[in-house]
């Protein structure tokens, strides 16, 4: 064991009543990085234990959602998706949207779900929501695989290849989506510790949010048909991420420089706000949860 020597008045750390707003202890998080990956491993390994289909569930959920959307929104309601097959169009939206909702839903439960661990041991609390976001990346990766499979299938059916070199920006979009989900999730999880009302809001709010996030329709369509409600989408950063991701994958839709800048700024602000709120709550949430 290393021996540290300290001068008078010098301390390894101090425990006080409140964290400073910006005392985000990245060094400490780094020290616990092994824990982060062990949590990720735990979540991936244990989720589908004792299920028959196992990781196949990762495929089934987006597949059936995309089929349903195609039937209802494209075949029945007649939404046009340009040159791209509607099914592929929906799948592209759902995959990235799923990543956001998974991050948000799971992180917003952090304090409540882990109260028994948090009540006994200290480790940087932020490790848990971070592990959730990383775990979901794996899920996203698997879901992208089925997207690619269908993409290749449609290519053989004569669809024009549209994804170009810009595809390299796709991971950046995923990061933005992750930041948004994590940031919002951390804010909600901090508030849920005291007021449980928010749990209900989140569960149906996320569903409603999907309808204004351009998941099953192109952004332009709403601006054109529902001009008085267009601002709902105009100011929804999620809509830009979904729309842009579809553009990168399928070449369908639009890219707006203003929209993207706005989205990135909002995501970063939400993320840091989330960190700050989370950081303030983690010190004493165990008394109120």
């Amino acid at each position, binding site marked *: 064991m290393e021996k540290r020597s300290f001068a008078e008045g010098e301390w390894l750390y101090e425990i006080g009543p409140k964290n400073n707003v910006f005392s985000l202890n990245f060094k400490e998080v780094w020290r616990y990085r092994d824990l982060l990956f*062990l949590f990720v491993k735990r979540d991936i390994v*244990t989720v589908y234990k004792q299920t028959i289909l196992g990781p196949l569930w990762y495929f089934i959920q987006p597949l059936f959602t995309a089929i349903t959307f195609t039937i209802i929104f494209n075949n029945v309601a007649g939404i046009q998706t340009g040159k791209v097959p509607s099914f592929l169009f929906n799948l592209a939206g759902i995959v990235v949207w799923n990543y956001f909702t998974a991050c948000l839903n799971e992180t917003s439960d952090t304090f409540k779900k882990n109260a028994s661990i948090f009540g*006994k041991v200290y480790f940087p609390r932020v490790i848990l929501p971070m592990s959730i976001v990383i775990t979901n990346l794996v899920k996203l990766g698997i879901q992208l695989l089925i997207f690619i499979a269908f993409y290749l299938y449609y290519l053989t059916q004569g669809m024009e290849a549209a994804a170009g070199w810009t595809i390299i920006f796709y991971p950046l979009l995923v990061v933005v989506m992750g930041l948004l989900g994590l940031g919002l999730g951390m804010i909600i999880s901090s508030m849920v510790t005291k007021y449980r009302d928010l749990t209900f809001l989140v569960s149906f709010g996320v569903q409603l949010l999907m309808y204004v996030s351009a998941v099953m329709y192109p952004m332009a369509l709403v601006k054109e048909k529902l001009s008085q409600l267009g601002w709902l989408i105009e100011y929804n950063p999620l809509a830009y991420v979904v729309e842009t991701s579809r553009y990168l994958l399928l070449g369908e839709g639009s890219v707006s420089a203003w929209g993207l800048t706005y989205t990135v700024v909002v995501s970063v602000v939400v993320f840091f706000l989330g960190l700050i709120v989370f950081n303030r709550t983690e010190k004493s949430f165990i008394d109120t949860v």
Partner: protein
Amino acid sequence: MKDIILKVENISKQYRLGTVGTGTLSHDLNRWWHTIRGKEDPYLKVGETNDRSSKGNSEYVWALQDINFEVERGEVLGIIGKNGAGKSTLLKILSKVTAPTTGTIKSRGRIASLLEVGTGFNPELTGRENIYLNGAILGMTKQEITSKLDEIIAFSGCERYIDTPTKRYSSGMTVRLAFAVAAFLEPEILVVDEVLAVGDAEFQKKAIGKMQDISRSEGRTVLFVSHNMAAVKSLCTKGIVLEHGKVVFEGDSNAAVDFYLTSDSNKTNTDLLSRTDRRGSGELKFSSVSLLDDKGDSVFEIVSGESARLRFTFERIKEITTENLVFGVVFRDINEVKVADFYSDEMGITFDKVLQNGYVDLEIPKLLLRGGVYSLDIVVQNGKIAANQIDLLHDVFEFNVFPGDYWKSGKINRATNVAIIDARFRE
């Protein structure tokens, strides 16, 4: 120069009683309103000392108030106090599980706690995977765990099952594995809270031995919280006594234990006579209760199945004859459920000299209670009819029973906080 490794300065902790509801929101808003105007939190002033038996007016209580102490490197500090004195709160603050309301703790070493072993164990993961996960939760890096993996597995005695999911383990195996992980932590400061109360006798021995190793040979600093006065005396070099969230004694561990035991019995003495929640006509009043072990020493804990004597001292307030005196004792478990009761008239006992002596003893050849915390109600009445009470007091004494081995099978009985009845299964 003294090598101070841990310095606790003015630590206080306030808790809000009751449930969280609309009132909480209004308090939060009020607090926020005071903060943005730069004023002091209005609810910090109203807290009362934490005494759960007396009813306070305020919704806020201080679980800890102005705690100050220093720990030198290599010292083993025993923290003693009654249930609810604030020991666990203090440990929670030290291990960073919750933050103090005021004050600071300065440390020159990493603190790890054995508050609860096995935190974060996932039943679906194998023993080996759980060692890694649990170790990392406790603050070890993967590399550290890998280097000690063989030792941990050997210490736990679970080699054969190490690649089996822990949900297939017996509860004993899970505890052993969990303790093994915790035992190989290498923090500069180790916090231990009543780990000795879990597991079987063999395991407790192992745990105490490991703690002695840690403190004596490795020179590590240990903070030790226990109700076991013998363990505190033998393990600790220094002790502090907490009472109602305040430090009432600080010094040598033997002196601290003595202070705790005597102050406690003094307190019950004065407490019982001064208590106002008594019923009865009041010719006699109970003044103190003590539990005596087989050597006649006053104790607060006893092993199940051992002999004991409960002594109830009383004072004669008015003239009374001894002819019809009936004494009664009710044992209650921690949830105030009756587990046993005794009345002197059923035993055909008359009290001839009891008024001269000023006390009455309840002799228990074998204390047949399972492990747990028990409290007593006592009554003295005139004849069999409960309505003719002379003095009746609830919750006069609390004592701890450690699980024993009633059936002499070599297996420690479950600590389920109920009475044991003489019974035996037959094929």
